């Protein structure tokens, strides 16, 4: 069991867990503790230090979009993203509910709504109190400053008028030929201007002091506002939810429309002439409406988890397209030096091209193939696939996937070529002695022998593809993580900045997991242990 566990950990590339397993089995506790200290505690401490520094430094840097969010704010943003996703899923459920469950759910929602009412009044009360408390405390601090300001202001303007009057008076006494006296007069005017400027600065400083005091955060108020917002959000959500359960509910709407239809049908039986025609038309229209209602779903907005799912689908689509191109070409390059020579210019030329360039080109080309997405067979086909259908795959998605493919296939291609070209000569001799045909040689000797390098290439490709994808989505407005970032950037809400930081961690984490998965695959296909370095 122990060795099985250790082997599994080793294959998964999570070797930092090995000492924990060994410790659990009581093997050399001292040594294992040392290892745990080095490979688990030290990284954790490093991360803690990072978070601490971040928390300390972030509030000092003010930007146009507000303060740089601290770790706590980012955490709040993450939970708010998740809450949003949860609540939207609830609403979607609610829209489709019918019968007893709908009524029960509605009752729960109504109850919670009524519970919220007093809470809301209380929260409003708190905000009011906090506001009042803040005003008094601010006024207390600002009061003396203001009085001093007024006092100084009066003094200064009095002094200024006095100085100016004196200067005006002396100007009349200036003798026309007395150059020295004129110089002295000019100097006096200069002094006067400098003094006036200094006095103005002094007043400005006082004013700034006042503004700073007024702008200072008042923790009590901040907390009260937060509580108020939370309750307001929940109220809004419950309101929407009760709407989906109540008159906005699909079953209720259907019932209502059906009742209308029945009534019309009954009247139609006895109607004559124009009235009969009108009624018949109404019945037909009503039937169409019922059909539409019964097929309708809740218009759910995109939430980050859904966008992550779509991004993953997109990156895998691109990765598959890229691999399907790269592996065969790579194999041919490895097999034939001539083919390699033919491909080298293309590889060298296209490898460094940025996704930002590929994307518009891909968008235009895909747009050319799919001029009308609503009526195209491919889009139609994709919309009916079980796990992908709901994602509304559109030309932007396809273009993003193609961009991912174009940027990521080079690593696989070059690695495959290298793997095929560097097959052990002895293994090829086996094929020669057995006079294996091309197919057997390819599938029994060449590809198995180059699999470790192919997978090394695939691993790099997937990593590159994941990075490229976010940029591609951001540009193409294909729903996904990139789009989320772009929306937040343009949105400018108070928590947009924090939500973008959440994305940093989400993208990093998913990239890490993808890489780990590829490592496991790489290890499973490598026949000698040396090839599977992490």
């Amino acid at each position, binding site marked *: 069991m122990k060795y099985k566990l250790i082997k599994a950990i080793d294959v998964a590339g999570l070797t930092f867990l090995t000492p924990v397993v060994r410790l659990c089995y009581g093997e050399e506790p001292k040594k294992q503790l040392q290892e745990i200290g080095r490979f688990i505690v030290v990284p954790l401490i490093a991360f803690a230090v990072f978070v601490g520094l971040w928390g300390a430094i972030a509030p000092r840097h003010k930007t146009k979009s507000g303060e740089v969010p601290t770790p706590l704010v980012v955490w709040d943003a993450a939970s708010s993203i998740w809450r949003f996703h949860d609540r939207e899923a609830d609403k979607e459920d609610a829209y489709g509910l019918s019968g007893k469950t709908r009524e029960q759910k509605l009752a729960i929602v109504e109850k919670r709504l009524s519970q919220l009412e007093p809470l809301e009044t209380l929260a409003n009360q708190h905000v009011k109190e906090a506001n009042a408390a803040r005003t008094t405390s601010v006024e207390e601090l600002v009061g003396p400053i203001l009085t001093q300001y007024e006092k100084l202001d009066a003094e200064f303007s009095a002094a200024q008028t006095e100085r100016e009057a004196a200067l005006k008076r002396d100007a009349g006494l200036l003798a026309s030929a007395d150059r020295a006296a004129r110089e002295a007069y000019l100097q006096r005017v200069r002094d006067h201007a400098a003094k006036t400027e200094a006095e103005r600065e002094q007043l400005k400083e006082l004013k700034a002091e006042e503004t700073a005091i007024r702008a200072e955060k008042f923790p009590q108020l901040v907390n009260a506002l937060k509580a108020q917002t939370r309750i307001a959000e929940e109220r809004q959500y419950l309101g929407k939810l009760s709407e989906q359960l109540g008159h906005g509910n699909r079953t209720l709407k259907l019932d209502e429309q059906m009742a209308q239809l029945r009534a019309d049908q009954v009247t139609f039986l006895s109607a004559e002439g124009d009235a009969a025609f009108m009624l018949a038309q109404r019945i037909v229209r009503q039937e169409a409406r019922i059909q539409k209602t019964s097929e309708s779903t809740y218009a759910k907005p995109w939430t980050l988890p859904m966008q992550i799912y779509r991004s993953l689908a997109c990156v895998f689509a691109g990765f598959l397209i890229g691999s399907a191109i790269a592996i065969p070409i790579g194999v041919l390059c490895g097999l034939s030096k001539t083919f390699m020579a033919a491909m080298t210019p293309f590889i060298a030329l296209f490898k460094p091209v940025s996704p930002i360039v590929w994307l518009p080109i891909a968008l235009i080309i895909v747009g050319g193939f799919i001029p009308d997405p609503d009526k195209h067979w491919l889009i139609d086909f994709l919309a009916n696939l079980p796990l992908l259908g709901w994602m509304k795959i559109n030309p932007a998605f396809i273009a993003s996937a193609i961009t991912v493919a174009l940027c990521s296939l080079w690593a696989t291609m070059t690695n495959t070529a290298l793997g095929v070209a560097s097959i052990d000569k*002895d293994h090829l001799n*086996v094929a020669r002695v*057995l006079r*294996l045909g091309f197919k057997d040689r390819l599938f029994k000797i060449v590809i198995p022998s180059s699999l470790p390098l192919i997978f090394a290439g695939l691993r790099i490709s997937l990593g590159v593809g994941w990075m490229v994808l976010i940029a591609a989505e951001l540009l193409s407005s294909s729903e996904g993580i990139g789009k989320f970032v772009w929306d937040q950037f343009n949105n400018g809400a108070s928590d947009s900045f924090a939500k973008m930081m959440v994305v940093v961690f989400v993208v990093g984490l998913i990239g890490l997991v993808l890489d780990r998965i590829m490592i496991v695959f790489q290890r499973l296909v490598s026949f*000698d242990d040396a090839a599977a370095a992490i």
Partner: protein
Amino acid sequence: MIQPITENLTPAAEAKTDGMALAERRFVEFYEVTKAYPNPYGEDIAVVKGFNLIVSKGEVVSVIGHSGCGKSTVLTMVAGLNDISSGGIVVGGREIVGPGPDRAVVFQAPCLLPWMTAFQNVKIGVDRVYPQASKQDRKQLCEYYLSVVGLADAMHRYPKELSGGMQQRVGIARAIALKPRMLLLDEPFGRLDSLTRMELQDVILDILNREKITTMVITHDVDEAIYMSDRVCMMTNGPGARVGQVLQLPFERPRERHAVLEHPDYYDLRGCLLSFLEGQDRRPAEPEVAVTAHEPVTTDAAAEVEEELVTADAAH
């Protein structure tokens, strides 16, 4: 200066040869085989030059010589893995062109495909050689040959899970499973310890006794050459290496190791081989290259003299 060794022919060996049809006596024939590589100045340097040898069917011939003299070059040329610059090799009445499963090779390194189990390594050859046989038959064939080399219990392991000796056993099983007309062993035990080496020598001798495959063994171990083969072919030093002398061994097959070791002639034979090798050490290689010292071997019936046993020694 060195005594020709044809006198050592025993009556038994003669009789065996006499009883064979011409095609069987000249089952494998090397005629003036030469391998030359161009040097940077555009001149061809012959590694092997004028190599002549005739092997009868079912015979085991070992080739000894100093390392780098061109033994392996000769073997890879028979195997078809290396082009012949001039001259030709005939196996079973047909001149060889390229490699083929009729000439199975066991290399010094086991050369197993590491992504396949021992069984699959044998099966890839069996599938190729017996395409008509049923799946079940092919499977049994693989299992049979793996058990012949003593791997019945380890046949589903991967090469990296096997010891060097076991890997080489798989290599042997893979070679004989091809039912080759000729078995080529290129220092097959060079990388093994002496105990494993003795075990594997017996494994191969067992197989050869049973299957009677014409075999060529490259080795630089004098004792191995004496124990395993019917004739020992000694190569001169390169460049321009060729057959220096051929020693006919007086042992019958099947043979016992201690019977061979205790044979009264054993040390004479051994001394003969060693003195040839030592003579090669002392002698400068150049003059020997200059002399092409052999009557061309022809395949027509008129040339049915015993010259296949006497080779390059005529010059000395």
